[in-house]
């Protein structure tokens, strides 16, 4: 089962690198978002340091949203989704496969995004990078779990990308609040922990346990 999940995820990541290139679009989209932020707010040194958590989280949110719009695209185009459902796997395993593939792509974007943000906004918090990355990873786990579920929900809808954004943004509000607060704490005190991190973990736990179940309902024929 774990192997099947891994293979499903690997298929998506590999296919992405070979021709779909969601990864490179996500990466350049995130740089574009940073550019927009800089143009909109023009933060000076102190402001930039205060803005970094919000900046990183919004960029991650928008970038992930973009990647999520494509999660089921290739399956939909080639009619391969039925094939995927016909594999002798529980629906939950298919969900986790899609989730893992998406998570890996998002994680790769984030690994590049954090240093890029610190360089472009000229913020000197390099020592916190491992903790920032850990936080973003934890947040993205819940974010993509909810996101893949919503992508499955909207895949047959008429204006699916708009609908995905409309559904995802309010539902991830707690994740975003917790993530930004926890990251502010990391930057100010250099410690990772406290109630905001717990809230993040609770969100992850809830969505990672419930989303596969919801996915099963959605794809049932």
């Amino acid at each position, binding site marked *: 089962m774990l192997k099947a999940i891994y293979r499903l995820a690997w298929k998506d990541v590999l296919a992405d690198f070979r021709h779909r290139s969601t990864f490179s679009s996500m990466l350049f989209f995130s740089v574009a978002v940073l550019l927009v932020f800089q143009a909109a707010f023009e933060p000076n040194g102190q402001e930039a340091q205060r803005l970094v958590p919000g900046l990183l989280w919004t960029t991650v949110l928008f970038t992930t949203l973009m990647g999520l719009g494509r999660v089921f695209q290739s399956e939909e185009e080639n009619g391969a989704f039925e094939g995927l459902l016909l594999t002798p796997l529980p629906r939950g395993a298919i969900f986790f496969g899609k989730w893992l593939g998406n998570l890996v792509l998002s994680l790769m974007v984030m690994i590049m995004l954090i240093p890029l943000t610190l360089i472009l906004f000229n913020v000197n918090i390099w020592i916190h990078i491992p903790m920032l990355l850990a936080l973003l990873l934890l947040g993205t786990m819940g974010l993509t779990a909810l996101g893949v579920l919503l992508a499955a929900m909207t895949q*047959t809808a*008429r204006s699916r990308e708009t*609908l995905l954004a*409309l*559904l995802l943004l309010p539902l991830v*509000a*707690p994740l975003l609040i917790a993530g930004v*607060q926890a990251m502010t704490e990391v930057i100010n005190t250099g410690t990772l922990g406290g*109630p905001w991190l717990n809230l993040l973990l609770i969100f992850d736990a809830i969505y990672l346990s419930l989303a596969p179940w*919801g996915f099963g309902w959605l794809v049932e024929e």
Partner: protein
Amino acid sequence: MKRLIAMNRWLGWLTLILLAVSLWLVFNAPIDYQQGNSVRILYIHVPSAKMALFVYLALTVFSIWYLWKKSETADILVEASAPVGAAFALVTLASGSIWGKPMWGTWWAWDARLTSMLVLLILYMGIIAIRNGIDDPVKGARATAVLAIFGAVDLPIIHFSVVWWRTLHQPPSFGKTASAGPAITGPLLPPLLWMSLTFFLLGAYLILLKARETQGRRTLEHLEAQRRTHV
């Protein structure tokens, strides 16, 4: 379903009568010594806030019912509840805003309750959008039911996270002892209770009315499809 529709006309008249009684009570209630006449907004604001939440609860129950029994009635009720809940949420936000300007000095604050109510409104909009956005009737019904249930799971998390985040709104006025801060008592309470009952019936009436309309539209679409295959 048919019996519910027949019942609905009586429900409508009952709501109207109760509305008249409640409004009479509201306009005869004494003014608040701090808030003056603007306290009367409370009689709209509090019941509609309660109903915005209560309709979501009903929506969740209908969704579970749909996924469990695959009953079309449940799906129609899900589709009918969402706009009614959205309307209550909108009334809550609008009346709160009108009250907030003179009392708090601002139309809007990013306070916990206000933020949760806004998220609830967006969630209702999302449910309406997804119900209308999917053409396949079964897929659309399932997607909407799953979304409603996930929204129900998410709403308490949203609420607690924004409560930790910031709080300005006064704590609830119902069911509290006087020692815990200003509580609503005496002559202000009966109109509020009557108004809450009225809003409850109004919500039920509107949902059933919308359900009837939805069912009629679906029957029509079904007939239209049949006609097209025969021509």
